[in-house]
């Protein structure tokens, strides 16, 4: 599939996917991008991920804290807030309904729409 189209789709649901990762536990930035890739999504660049995390944090949906590294830089961990969990559950409902509408349209078989 054209990567451009995939990128466009992903842009619409990346925040939901990140909230989905954080709904399962505490993760630092790079670990979030790995979880997204393991789920089959493409590689998300740091330049996309961290601005998104900052937006979610300023919106009060996630919270973060730094842990010191043994050697070298530390890790910044993120988790959902109470508000984040509510928003996530609401978005999951909306996404499910939306994707079902799309599925209804594209998987229809044996129906002739232009029957006259």
């Amino acid at each position: 599939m054209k990567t451009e189209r995939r990128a466009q789709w992903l842009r619409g649901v990346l925040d939901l996917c990140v909230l989905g990762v954080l709904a399962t536990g505490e993760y630092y930035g790079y670990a979030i991008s790995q979880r997204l890739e393991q789920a089959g999504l493409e590689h998300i660049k740091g330049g996309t991920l961290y601005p998104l995390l900052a937006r979610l944090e300023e919106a009060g949906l996630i919270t973060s804290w730094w842990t010191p590294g043994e050697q070298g830089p530390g890790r910044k961990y993120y988790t959902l807030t109470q508000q984040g969990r509510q928003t996530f559950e609401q978005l999951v409902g909306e996404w499910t309904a939306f994707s079902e509408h799309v599925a209804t349209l594209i998987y229809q078989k044996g129906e002739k729409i232009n029957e006259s």
Partner: protein
Amino acid sequence: MNLDAYLEQLSACLQRYGLDNQHISDIIAEVESHVAESGESPLDAFGPPEAYADARVTDHERRSGGAWQYRTFRATAFDEMLILQEAGQAGWELVDVAAFALYCRRPWDPKDVKQWEYTRCVGLNRNTIISNMLASRWEPCGNWTPFHYFKRAL
């Protein structure tokens, strides 16, 4: 570009765009931490430092609200005209000048954004300079003795 050079440039850009130190050190630490884990070059992972700094500062300002976006460009009397030329083309309107700082604003709504040109006069006779410039439609927009700055919408 190695990591130190990248972080230095990113930090300088974030400072020039007027972000506070707390946010700057956080953004720098994120980059450092991420590339230490992923093994990528910072340029591959985050893009050019100027563009990444611009994206982060713009994001931050957009959430702060209001019709105007404000930005402080750090500058000296040696490089400020070049900075102003670029800023003016990008729609930044100079509203005041202080030592090493150009205070600019730009409407959030792209429909309202205008381009600006700038010029500078050097001299101590402020009143004469200003009235001469006003006669040729240049609007004064700050001075830092003995430099006087003027703007004109393109």
